[in-house]
């Protein structure tokens, strides 16, 4: 028998980590670290980490890394890239970090068309500080400070950051992945690869990933994927929102999602997904 899937990504130093059971963030981490490795970029990659639960990987990720302050990662990434233009620079941020604390940083970085990649792990809550509402929490979502669900009249509407960035002329590639099932995880990894390729071609790229936070959502870990699909996933629609500067419609995204899900079912039935 042939090894088809390694236990952990090579660019991660330890198998063990401090994330909660059922957390979606390590699944996204696997995706971008394997994408970097497979594209042969591990010696050129420089990560700029935001502040969130995922920051605990800053000590165990085997690529050069700069720790930024809350929300500031895209601006730090801009500086790193301009000083070291041959490097592959990417941010790792949560929705609290990127969309609440530092919204203008990512907007301006995209608008300027900086040749960096911004990665957003979106779970609709401030996971690290206890699970309260963020700017991406969807209407009706129960969080620590919206116990009866987010109310549009009182809390306002969610910011669909991927859709917003796709409208900016400076953004070349914008995608929204998800880790609610194995097929989606594999598809999200391909989005990371296209994003890094876009950066190598000189454009700004953005990959948002919907990730489970059962702790912040007050639900059993096993219900995380279905809960996410029924809440965040219904509003923040998965798919490649903008490719080569062309923005796709929501209908096109839905069609593509149905087709991709069917393809993945067939692949699993035939015997496997390439990891």
């Amino acid at each position, binding site marked *: 028998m042939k090894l088809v899937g390694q236990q952990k990504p090579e660019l991660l130093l330890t198998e063990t980590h401090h994330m909660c059971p059922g957390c979606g963030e390590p699944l996204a981490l696997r995706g971008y670290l394997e994408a970097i490795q497979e594209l042969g970029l591990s010696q050129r990659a420089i990560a700029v980490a935001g502040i969130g639960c995922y920051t605990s990987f800053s000590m165990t990720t085997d690529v050069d890394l700069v720790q930024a302050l809350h929300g500031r990662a895209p601006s730090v990434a801009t500086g790193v890239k301009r000083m070291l233009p041959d490097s592959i620079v990417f941010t790792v941020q949560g929705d609290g970090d990127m969309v609440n604390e530092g919204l203008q940083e990512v907007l301006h970085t995209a608008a300027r068309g900086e040749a960096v990649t911004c990665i957003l792990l979106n779970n609709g809550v401030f996971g690290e500080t206890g699970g309260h509402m963020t700017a991406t929490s969807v209407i009706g979502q129960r969080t620590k400070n919206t116990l009866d669900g987010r109310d549009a009249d009182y809390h306002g509407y969610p910011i669909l950051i991927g859709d917003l960035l796709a409208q900016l002329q400076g953004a070349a590639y914008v995608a929204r992945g998800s880790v609610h099932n194995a097929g989606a995880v594999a598809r999200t990894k391909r989005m990371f690869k296209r994003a890094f390729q876009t950066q190598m071609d000189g454009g700004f790229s953005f990959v948002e990933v919907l990730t489970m936070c059962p702790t912040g959502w007050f639900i059993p870990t*096993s219900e995380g994927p279905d809960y996410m699909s029924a809440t965040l996933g219904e509003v923040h629609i998965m798919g490649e929102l903008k490719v080569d500067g062309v923005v796709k419609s929501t209908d096109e995204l839905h069609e593509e999602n149905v087709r991709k899900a069917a393809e993945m079912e067939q692949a699993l039935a035939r015997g*496997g997904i*390439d990891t």
Partner: protein
Amino acid sequence: MSTVKSKGTVTIAVETCKGCELCIPACPPAVLTMSSTVNHLGYHYPELADGCTGCAACLLICPDFVFEVFREARSPAAGAAT
């Protein structure tokens, strides 16, 4: 003796498992079940029965890097999704 042919197999690092159970419904032939005993962290962990296809769905959905997946070499025509 088993009558189910396994086209693949997995290793399960039970001590790093946090018992989230995401791998259980992810497994297409349903050959993973949670253990009745617990690991040193106090979590139940998955156990493998015969019939694994080596599809890697469990590895892709496991947040705690518990699985390693092996697959029988197949003819290229069978093709895996990329």
